[in-house]
């Protein structure tokens, strides 16, 4: 079989798996898998750009995804009443003050030398820190005192949440610019540790800075780009249409909303995918791959290695940020406590490696396949157990055992799949051409 036929077969196989879910359990869960699969595929493309095409080892995907989520809150939430008056501007001022302190330090360090430099740096940094705290603390306290059970944060701009997707990308790109400026151009493990560390810091900040996005109290009930199911169910025109299709209004409304999300996410995925493919087949893409394959040779040919690395690192991270904002939109809530490296960093890596690093088709395939397995291994394990134990008469105590034993299947199976994949297809399902 030729390569392209195999690829089509692989995609068809994954599609069949998802369709099977639709037929055997419910279309609702199938659509849910598709929606998260679309988001996972976008994240995988982002990582694939960085790793597969430029050889940049980013293990802080979680941080960029979380920044995208933060953008969703900051853009779509209505501003908290009185928060800006109580201390919002003061917080912004304090942040600017902190920024100014750093800028001043850099400026002074450039102008002075020797012992004077050390003393001046220390004086500015320590003085700046206390000044910053003096402005920052009362403002934060005032904001967090406003209706803490429901709000206690600054709120956002009250704009449509779809706008948060590009904003999430921008936020992640900003963070990536800072990391890239400091860590790129040095050895590769700098980037690994820098991304890992900064993603932990992003999560720690999200958990602790209550004025920003309520910390571990979570922001729930975010604005939605699509109508609520409950409104659809009360809309006579919709009920009529649903009846015309032979569906009851409750099922029809959930399917309608999920399909809507699917369409929106597909549009974003196609956009990003086409852009990535075009970029990579352009001279720029060839240059990036040349740098990956032999940095020294590329530099000798006059290519600016560090600048290309910085570009593609920012691009990949921005894509992860967009996906993060989309995920929060789909969930309708931001829960910083649930961001864990195993789920948001290494699972994405598994998608890229299993799909085939260096190939965008592979990344998309891996996104869907791995997400499907991650979600469906448990219910299928349960079904298998149920099938095996079905003929047994006294099922009452067995049920507990069943429920207990299938819960472990997920990690076990994921590990097994990854090991088998690497053993037999170390270059992934759809290898780089």
């Amino acid at each position, binding site marked *: 079989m030729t390569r392209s036929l195999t690829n089509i077969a692989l995609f068809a196989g994954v599609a069949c798996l998802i369709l099977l879910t639709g037929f055997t359990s419910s279309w609702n869960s199938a659509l849910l898998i598709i929606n998260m699969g679309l988001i996972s595929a976008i994240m995988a493309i982002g990582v694939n750009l960085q790793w597969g095409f430029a050889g940049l080892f980013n293990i802080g995907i979680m941080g960029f995804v979380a920044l995208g989520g933060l953008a969703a809150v900051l853009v779509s939430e209505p501003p908290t009443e009185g928060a800006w008056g109580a201390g919002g501007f003061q917080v912004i001022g304090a942040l600017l003050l902190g920024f100014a302190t750093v800028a001043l330090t850099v400026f002074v360090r450039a102008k002075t030398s020797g012992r004077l430099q050390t003393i001046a740096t220390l004086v500015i940094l320590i003085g700046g820190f206390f000044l910053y705290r003096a402005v920052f603390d009362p403002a934060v306290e005032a904001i967090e005192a406003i209706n803490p059970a429901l709000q206690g944060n600054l709120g956002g701009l009250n704009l449509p949440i779809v706008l948060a997707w590009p904003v999430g990308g921008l936020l992640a790109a900003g963070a990536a610019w800072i990391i890239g400026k400091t860590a790129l151009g040095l*050895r590769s493990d700098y980037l690994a540790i820098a991304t890992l560390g900064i993603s932990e810091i992003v999560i720690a900040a999200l958990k602790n800075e209550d004025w920003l996005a309520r910390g571990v109290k979570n922001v729930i009930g975010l604005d939605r780009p699509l109508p609520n199911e409950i409104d659809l169910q009360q809309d006579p025109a919709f009920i009529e249409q649903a009846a015309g299709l032979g569906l009851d209004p409750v099922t029809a409304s959930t399917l309608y909303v999920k399909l809507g999300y699917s369409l929106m996410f597909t549009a974003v995925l196609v956009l990003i995918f086409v852009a990535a493919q075009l970029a990579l087949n352009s001279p720029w893409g060839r240059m990036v791959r040349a740098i990956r394959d032999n940095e020294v040779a590329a530099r000798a040919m006059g290519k600016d290695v560090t600048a290309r690395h910085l570009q593609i690192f920012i691009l990949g991270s921005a894509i992860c940020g967009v996906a993060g904002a989309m995920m929060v939109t789909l969930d309708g809530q931001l829960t910083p406590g649930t961001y864990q490296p195993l789920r948001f960093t290494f699972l994405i*890596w598994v998608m890229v490696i299993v799909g085939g690093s260096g190939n965008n088709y592979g990344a998309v395939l891996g996104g869907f396949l791995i997400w499907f397995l991650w979600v469906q291994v448990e219910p299928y394990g349960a079904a298998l157990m149920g099938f095996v*134990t079905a003929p047994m008469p006294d099922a009452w105590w067995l049920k507990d055992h069943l429920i207990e034993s299938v819960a472990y299947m997920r990690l*076990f199976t994921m590990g097994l799949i990854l090991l088998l994949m690497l053993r037999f297809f170390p270059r992934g399902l759809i290898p780089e051409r």
Partner: protein
Amino acid sequence: MGDQFLFAIEVMINGLMAGVLYALVALGFVLIFKASGIFNYAQGVMALFAALTLVGIMEGQVPFSHLINAIFGTKIHHFGWEVPAILAILLTMMIMVFFAWAVNHFVMRHLVNQEPIILFMATIGLAYFLEGVGDLMWGSEIKTLDVGLPQGGSFWIEDMTAGLGSDNFFGFFIDKLDMVATVIAAILVVGLVVFAQYTKQGRAMRAVADDHQAALSVGISLNYIWVLVWSLAGFVALVAGIMWGAKSGVQFSLSLIALKALPVLMLGGFTSIPGAIVGGLIIGVGEKIFEFTVGAAIGGATENWFAYMLALLFLVFRPQGLFGEKIIERV
């Protein structure tokens, strides 16, 4: 002496003890990285698995009991015997050796000459797999591990040091277990160094670490050395698992300390055994002291990221780590 100062010392001592654990995990990393160039993400899970197995054997649990019960409709849980700690540790060690052999035979042997990232991903797969197997074999509830190590704070130290501060100071609280852990870790490191320096296998191991091909050409079996190294790492993981399990129960959060070992390695250098120890201690003490002194001023919860920041600083000023080999070139 002021009470604050005494508290700071107490925090520091307890940080040292926490650092011992980081150091033990990092030690396992270094062993495998030196000999085969694999960054073993599964080291933390290996510690967890070893501790789970130890508890399971000691309490006479039936492995895979849930699975067996579910499939055959039986109701077995325990064999009904209890195994003495020493014997159980030996049995666990045998299982870890078998695990080392299996990893090498079924996974790593086939991935020779692959890119480092593929090897790294394989260890992530291994981590997932081992966590799942641990769950299937022994169940997921938090277990208590008691191998007869002393527990609780040492009253003797508390009484001895109570007089140092004012009436509000009740003496240093230092867990006996932590002290034992420190001693055992020290013995372990000395033992490893002696093994590496003076035994035939140890020398072969170092030869492989220095140059694979040269070692191969003088007749050292790479497969044998890799199994040996993974077994040693399994042994270190077992010790770490016992310490951690005795301290806070055998639970699945143990696997997360694998991530903390990364900054430890950055600090100590990827290829240095003393570096792993010193790096672990610095991170352990550093994050506790930082939380104690600066943490309150910047909103707390600094322990999560302090280690990474410290590692970053180190990378800027001393990229090879404290004890690493100076073969690093800045690009």
